[in-house]
């Protein structure tokens, strides 16, 4: 607390305590070292004062009275007594009440050993129950969804899970039912607790009423070893990784004020199952014969030693560089690695081999300059009370779950106004102040009008498909709050259109940002929201064409980098699309796949297949074999999250630590070690032998990371890398999108949370949660199709066709058709024209 802030003085058990105005007594006391017992109070949710455990004597001048300290705000001169006889008796009484019907089945309860009720029973209550009547009993356990079980008789009705579902997640699907001592938490009949965030209720349950299916009966808390780390998602959610017998068994969210506030998505929370998959790669693989003998012309992947595999790779690289030059080597992927791994691969490819054909994204994100060349926002800036958020990105609820929770909180509680500039509704739409759901591919015109640009509405009175008056209202709202921070969440709202319209829209907003900055206002900044775990680390570490570690261009590396690396590529290389194109044309000899699956992921699988078929040697480093790496010639087994140490960079540029807590399977190694070893075989000594050593080098050579010492990033919320010498280069010519003809619908496609991705599909508890593909239409358009919801129709674009069930969805604007990008069953890429700015489809019924 700074000196300038107003301070309220209270006494807690006679000791003077300085508190902030509005602070709750329970929080002020805890800060001063006096822990008041509690069950329902949770600092990230509104207090309800239900459990009454935190009841203490509070005297505000009218004599001491028992009051719940979680509901009472501090006031000057207040005297709090947490140890009075009366307090003690009340708390003992509440604890006895709570235990009346509690089954005391601690020996078979997952919570045993880390249970607030168990812990506080040691300190409060009579020790032996005076309750001799029959306890309440319920059928146990009941699933509230596929991941969470509920044992109602253990429940103490603290309202934490139900408040979380309602207040935090916005999925109020579990609730109190019945009343009196028959009150129970339950789902509505026939409606499961379908929430992407249900696992958080397990973590915050103060008893063992809610348990997670993937963890039930797997371990006891006292057998777990744990380490605080950073989950490798673009948010960089802070987690505690818990393991037993060298196996990760649980992730728990950590309350990082700057990032995830303790929450995790179910996808991330339960993804630890994938790490233990039988299908993990354990030894290097090379081409060989069916009998397992290594043979460069073999059709199979056979096991090899690290020595063999590394030597084969080094020989192939040397041969390629010698015969066709460094440009014949390309690197795809690396966005899921730690910063240190990324740096080592960047140094290998750009410094040692000398190729700039490096791209961590697969033509499904935004160019590096759009992330590094625009003023960068933090999550907390986006959530500044009274500020404005412009969503120019895919639905955060699907793509960046904890960002959705933070934004939702900001909009609901802190008066942040949300303006959606997206081709369809998101999980936040019902909270948005303005919903500008434009025609796919026409974001730029709407953005121009939004920042006050002169755009004439079409003959239909619309701009980019949005009614002109709606755009004008949003523009007025934006201008009206221009003295407060404006934050643009920038990503790829739809993969059925090229990145250009989004980049043009960003350029419009960037111009507005410059205008605001000139006026001395807090202005407008961008919070990039891209796909893949450490994609922001990859961009900072130079795993993109034209950039080097530390947010510098090829020419601006500075002396430090050039000195350490020796040399850097002279001219910018190709991005993922260019690399695949070059490969398909036979110009790529060596293709590295660093945890990448262009066949499964890139928007153009046809091109990806042609590319993989013509590359001389594909060298993969991955945790699993996928459709692309199955075609590789050399495969290195890579260590995954929690199997290696390092650091992570989130969408703000915030760098936090990751820790190793288990050993990788088999002989799998960290990626930095693989790159370093290859470099050594190619004659370059990197001179580092640990992630810490690499980080030390990064802080020496990367301009944006100079201040970020190991100590700085070890802080609770890590440290944010700032500064960049990259400039944003929006596409030159405005992409003209054709008119949609009257019989067609324009396609929108974005990723869903549960998908056919590697981690989800290798985690047994998550794999089944991926929804089946449907084509969603606006109800008006749906009526035109004239079939029942769920009826398969034939969808035809000019590149492909498929049968898919069609459903009505009011979140899809008229004239558009929405199709998830990554369903396990049907692949929308068969319909998308990767060359065109937009793809139109027609629907045929049979």
């Amino acid at each position, binding site marked *: 607390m700074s000196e300038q802030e107003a301070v309220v003085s209270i006494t807690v058990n006679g000791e003077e305590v300085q508190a902030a105005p509005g602070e709750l007594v329970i929080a002020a006391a805890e800060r001063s070292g006096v822990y008041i017992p509690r069950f329902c109070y949770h600092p990230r949710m509104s207090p309800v004062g*239900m459990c*009454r455990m935190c009841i203490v004597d509070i005297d505000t001048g009218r004599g001491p009275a*028992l009051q719940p300290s979680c509901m009472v*705000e501090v006031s000057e001169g207040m005297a709090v007594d947490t140890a009075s006889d009366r307090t003690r008796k009340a708390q003992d009484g509440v604890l006895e*009440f709570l235990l009346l019907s509690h089954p005391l089945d601690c020996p078979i309860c997952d919570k045993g050993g880390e249970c607030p009720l168990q812990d506080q029973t040691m300190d409060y209550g009579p020790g032996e129950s005076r309750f*001799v*009547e029959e306890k309440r009993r319920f059928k146990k356990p009941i699933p509230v969804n596929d991941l969470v079980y509920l044992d109602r008789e253990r429940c103490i009705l603290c309202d934490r899970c139900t408040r979380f579902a309602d207040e935090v997640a916005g999925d109020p699907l579990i609730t109190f039912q019945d009343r*009196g*001592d028959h009150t129970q938490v339950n789902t509505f009949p026939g409606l499961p607790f379908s929430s992407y965030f249900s696992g958080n209720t397990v973590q915050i349950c103060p008893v063992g009423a809610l348990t997670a299916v993937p963890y039930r009966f797997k371990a006891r808390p006292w057998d777990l070893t744990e380490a605080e780390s950073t989950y490798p998602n673009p948010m960089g959610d802070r987690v505690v990784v818990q393991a037993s017998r060298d196996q990760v068994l649980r992730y728990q969210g950590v309350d990082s004020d700057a990032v995830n506030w303790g929450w995790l998505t179910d996808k991330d929370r339960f993804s630890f199952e994938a790490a233990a998959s039988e299908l993990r790669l354990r030894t290097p693989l090379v081409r060989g014969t069916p009998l397992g003998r290594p043979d460069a012309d073999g059709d199979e992947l056979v096991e090899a030693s690290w020595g063999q595999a590394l030597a084969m790779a080094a020989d192939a690289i040397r041969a390629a560089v010698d015969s066709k030059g460094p440009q014949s080597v390309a690197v795809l992927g690396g966005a899921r690695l730690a910063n240190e791994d990324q740096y080592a691969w960047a140094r290998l490819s750009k410094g040692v081999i000398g190729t700039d054909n490096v791209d961590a994204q697969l033509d499904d994100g935004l160019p590096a300059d759009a992330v590094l060349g625009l003023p960068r926002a933090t999550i907390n800036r986006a959530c500044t009370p009274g500020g404005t958020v412009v969503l120019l990105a895919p639905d955060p609820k699907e793509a960046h779950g904890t960002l959705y929770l933070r934004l939702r909180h900001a909009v609901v509680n802190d008066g942040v106004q949300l303006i959606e500039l997206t081709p369809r509704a998101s999980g936040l739409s019902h909270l948005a102040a303005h919903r500008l759901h434009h025609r796919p591919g026409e974001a730029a015109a709407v953005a121009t009008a939004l920042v006050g640009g002169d755009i004439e509405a079409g003959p239909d009175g619309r701009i980019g498909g949005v009614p002109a008056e709606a755009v004008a209202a949003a523009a007025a709202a934006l201008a009206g709050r221009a003295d407060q921070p404006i934050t643009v969440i920038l990503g790829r709202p739809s993969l059925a259109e090229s990145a250009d319209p989004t980049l043009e829209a960003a350029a419009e907003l960037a111009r507005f940002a410059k205008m605001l900055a000139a006026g001395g206002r807090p202005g407008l900044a961008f919070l990039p929201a891209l796909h893949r775990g450490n994609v922001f680390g990859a961009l900072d570490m130079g795993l993109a064409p034209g950039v080097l570690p530390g947010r510098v261009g090829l020419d601006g590396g500075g002396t430090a980098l050039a000195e350490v690396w020796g040399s850097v590529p002279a001219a910018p290389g190709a991005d993922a699309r260019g690399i695949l194109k070059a490969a398909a044309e036979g110009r790529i000899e060596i293709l590295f796949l660093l945890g990448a699956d262009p066949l499964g992921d890139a928007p153009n699988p046809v091109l990806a297949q042609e590319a993989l078929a013509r590359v001389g040697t594909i060298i993969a480093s991955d945790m699993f074999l996928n459709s692309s790496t199955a075609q590789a010639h050399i495969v290195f087994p890579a260590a995954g999250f929690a199997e290696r140490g390092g650091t992570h960079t989130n969408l703000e540029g915030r760098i936090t630590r990751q820790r190793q807590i288990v050993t990788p399977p088999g002989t799998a190694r960290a990626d930095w070690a693989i790159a370093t070893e290859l470099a050594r075989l190619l004659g370059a000594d990197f001179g580092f032998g640990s992630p810490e050593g690499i980080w030390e080098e990064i802080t020496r050579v990367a301009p944006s990371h100079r201040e970020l010492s190991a100590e700085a990033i070890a802080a609770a919320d890590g440290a944010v890398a700032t500064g960049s010498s990259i400039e944003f280069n929006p596409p030159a010519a405005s992409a003209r999108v054709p008119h949609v003809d009257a019989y067609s619908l324009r396609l929108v496609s974005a990723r869903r949370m549960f998908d056919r991705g590697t981690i989800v599909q290798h985690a047994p508890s998550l794999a089944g949660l991926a929804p089946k593909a449907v084509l969603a239409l606006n109800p008006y358009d749906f009526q035109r199709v004239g079939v029942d919801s769920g009826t398969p129709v034939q969808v035809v674009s000019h590149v492909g066709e498929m049968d898919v069930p069609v459903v009505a969805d009011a979140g899809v604007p008229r004239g558009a058709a929405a199709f998830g990008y990554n369903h396990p069953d049907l692949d929308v890429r068969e319909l998308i024209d990767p060359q065109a700015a937009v793809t139109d489809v027609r629907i045929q019924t049979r």
Partner: protein
Amino acid sequence: MLHWLRAQNVALLTDVYLEFEAGLNVVTGETGVGKSVLLEALGLILGGRGRTQLVGPAADRAVVEAGFTPPEAEPSDRERFRALAQEAGFPVEDGDLMIRRELRLAPGRRSISNRITVNGTAVPVAVLRALGAVLAEIYSQGEYLALLQPGAARETVDEAGGHAPLRRDVAAAFRALRAREAERDALQERLAAALNEAYEAGYVGANVLGAADFSVDITLHWGAGAYIVGEETALIESLEGNRGMPRLKPPYFPASIGLYGKPTIVNNVETLCNLPWIVSNGGAAFAAMGAESSTGTRVFAVSGHISAPGVFEVPFGTTTFRDIIFDPGYGGGLRPGRTLKTFIPGGASAPWFFEEHLDLPLEKTAVDQAGSMLGSGAIVVMDDTTDVVKACHNLVRFFARESCGKCTPCREGTSWLEKILSRILAGQGRPQDLDLLMDVCDNISPGISWPPRQTTICPLGPSAVSPIASAIERFRDEFEAYLPATAVAVTTSSAVAS
């Protein structure tokens, strides 16, 4: 008698024609060959339920036909058959009867439609069911025909499961519920009609009685009768569409943060009813009535063991309990030959009063000082026939059931109190139970003082404390009398020992 049966596209039978002779006919065949399908086909003829699965997989319709001679043996069957034929309007020539039933699948195979003819005349399926009862009897898996009737099937299952009494209870409760709903509906209608009249007369609505600057709307909002929703913040929660659970004060004082977070005044009907008189006659006239500290009039409901229970409006503060209970103009005294044991002065949550309190005036300060309250104005009189343990149990059970379940001491405490009292009444009390009751009360309402302190959010929890504290303090012997002899003996011996 059944002469022939033809089934086309019924389940796995594509086309089967069977003729039957007089006497015993036996149809045999291997398992799975379709004998039971024939029975299903016959069932269709006799009015069984047509199901989509009965239509063969390759067909869009199933057809069953059968030839009968109408019943002759039993005169009653003959009569019924003739009556049926007449009512349904199908011809009966040369004593032959041909029934044809066709099940047609709707596109998508999700539903079926029936085409039924009896001797060429279309009839509804109900006719087949009635015919079935006189044409054939199928003895096989159960009372086949009877089970076609949903009601009969339900009855059979209930009888078999021993649930007939329960079913009757549920039916009776349901009828009672419906009756109460109808009663409530009538009251709601009446209130709504009155409000409409008020609108029409210009007493409510825009520009009341032509006033340019005064408009008021009244919205009727129907609750479902939860006691806790009488608490003002719970009422507000309920109005907002949430569970009727009280809010915590502070910060939710309705006058500052009320309905939808706006300042709100919550008044009960009694208060509002006073307004017209006060407006017409002036505040001074109202204040001139009653005592100095409790002015005006108040309404009291006197019930219980009393000759003339009723609702009485009396001058506030000057009337005494003795007046309102014994005065022939009010309660009219106890039933003949009875003496007063105790009375509740102001609703179920008020501590009890006794003989010595009768001369207290119905006045706030005096009643408060005597350790209770006028509260809701509901005076409940109990005479010497009252079993105070049962009375106490009845009151506590009420509070346990009406507890909303929000805060721990009330939710758990009230039901614990009820369970202990139930056990005592069942003769399974323990000597320590009386002290336990008092200590549980103390944990809900620390000190068991008046006015009550509370560990709860709202006063409902402490309300359950009042009857127990009053009853145990005054009538401890009656509670002890419920304890089993052995339990009492233990108390006695320990008393002797000490």
